[in-house]
């Protein structure tokens, strides 16, 4: 374990009490991130991603389990200025300009980046003198990014970093992440966008209902959650027959229409059209993260 200079989460658990009873936000997870790696924590809302991020940063104490960041407790890595974080809500004070806020943060760290460099990396060079309370959602998010990276940290933890950004900002944001990653920085980002995890992570940790349900390269995760469903109007064909089609894993009927869950929707579609030319209103859709998670975790939910 000492070999990992990155992050090690072991058996983490966290339960919150709420008016509706105890909420088990994180139910015993193990995650490892190696130095220099870019890892996505992928899951739908309520999967426990933010709670995991909070524990990883030392903002919340786990009920059970251990956190090690660069071989020590998170407080130590944070105290040494080695961790930068972009929290979901955080870091934007009013009554200061963009540049002042970034400079204020820089003043707290031992070896910060040049403030102008941080502003450039976060695509804020055009609006350095704008007051923080007058920023759009995307600009505000970029300001959070600048605040996170101005300390020149070794590890950057980003919680839903691109929420509120337009397409252009997103692209620029990820290109900066790549640039920094190429310089050896370690990234852990939480997201509920499969495309982002797929495109930018070396590895994806899939979370649902407070558990890690899969951990592997993006292609592997995509195969799990990126499954597609074919829908068609097709009366009078037995489901068993449809389930025998290549690439179909499961078939369901809703009146006249059928839904075919597929591991390979291309192959399934070709065969469907050849064998059942009477099929109408054919529709192929990504199953969506939420659906995929529900399928992945239904059994566990019942057990829990």
């Amino acid at each position, binding site marked *: 374990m000492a070999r990992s200079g990155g992050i090690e989460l072991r058996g983490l658990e966290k339960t919150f009490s709420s008016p509706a009873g105890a909420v088990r936000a994180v139910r015993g997870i193990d995650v490892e991130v190696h130095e220099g790696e870019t890892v996505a924590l992928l899951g739908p809302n309520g999967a426990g991603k933010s709670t995991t991020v*909070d524990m990883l*940063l*030392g*903002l*919340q104490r786990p009920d059970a389990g251990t956190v090690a960041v660069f071989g020590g407790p998170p407080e130590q890595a*944070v*105290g*040494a*200025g080695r*961790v*930068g*974080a972009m*929290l979901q*809500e*955080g*870091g*934007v*004070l*009013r*009554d*200061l300009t963009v540049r*002042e*806020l970034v*400079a*204020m*943060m820089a*003043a*707290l*760290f*031992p070896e910060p980046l040049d403030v102008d460099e941080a502003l450039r990396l976060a695509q804020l060079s055009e609006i350095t003198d704008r007051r923080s309370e007058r920023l759009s959602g995307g600009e505000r998010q970029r300001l959070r990014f600048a*605040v996170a990276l101005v*300390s020149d940290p070794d590890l950057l933890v980003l919680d839903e970093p691109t929420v509120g950004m337009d397409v252009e900002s997103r692209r620029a944001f990820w290109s900066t992440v790549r640039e920094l990653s190429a310089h050896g920085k370690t990234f852990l980002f939480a997201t509920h966008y499969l495309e982002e995890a797929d495109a930018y992570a070396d590895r994806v940790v899939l979370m649902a209902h407070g558990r890690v349900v899969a951990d592997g390269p993006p292609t592997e995760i995509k195969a799990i959650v990126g499954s597609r469903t074919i829908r068609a109007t097709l009366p009078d064909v037995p489901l068993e027959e449809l389930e025998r089609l290549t690439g179909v894993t499961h078939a369901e009927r809703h009146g006249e229409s059928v839904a075919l869950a597929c591991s390979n929707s291309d192959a399934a579609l070709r065969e469907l059209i050849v064998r059942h030319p009477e099929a109408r209103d054919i529709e192929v859709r990504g199953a969506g993260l939420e659906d995929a998670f529900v399928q992945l975790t239904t059994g566990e939910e019942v057990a829990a």
Partner: protein
Amino acid sequence: MSNPLAYARFELLRTFRNRRLYIFSLGFPLVLYYAIAGPNRNEHDLGGTGISAPLYFMVGLAAFGAMNAVLGSGARIAAERSVGWNRQLRLTPLSTRTYFRVKVATAYVMGILTIALLYVAGATLGVHLQAGNWLAMTGLVLIGLAPFAALGILLGHLLTSDSVGPAIGGTTAVFALLGGTWFPITSGAMQKLAEALPSYWLVQASHVGLGEHGWGTTGWLVVVAWTVGAAVLARRAYARDTQKV
């Protein structure tokens, strides 16, 4: 190297950009002073004490205004917490000690400005004091503000940005009333209660400017006890405050 002074400079800059803070912290006591002392500017023997009205109200309002400003400055922490600023600060090497020092220093800047403005206002209504008197009064008032600096930081951590305004207003009003800011405390039981409050001793400190003698042992004990008590609680509140608000 990290640079706490640069950090403190931005903290002050933020304070000075906040217009509402000016109006309520600095402007309010000033307006009150001219409203009360202005019409009585030629009263040189207030209630047969030989003290002039402009002087009497100047020292009282300096104490009240500074208390208000110092408490209010700490209370801004509630708003900072509500936007997640304090969580972000936890992810920096900023020490608890430096955080408190900067907060206390900012509160004191507001307190000192309030006092200075009241002194200038007093001068415009003809108040004259010996330099030694000014200094002794100001020095003791600044010490008497310490419990309020700690209390402000404590309240800023315990309350939300919605509730902190009324809470600070109420606290100030109760402290001012029971501390004898508006009228002298005379009844025995009230006197005992008043003497246990830091606001009473703050008013006593300001009365050094009227030729009184400041604090005896009780005064020092009460001020130190409130300061230490509030500081310990504030520190605990800060340590606990890492979750979303």
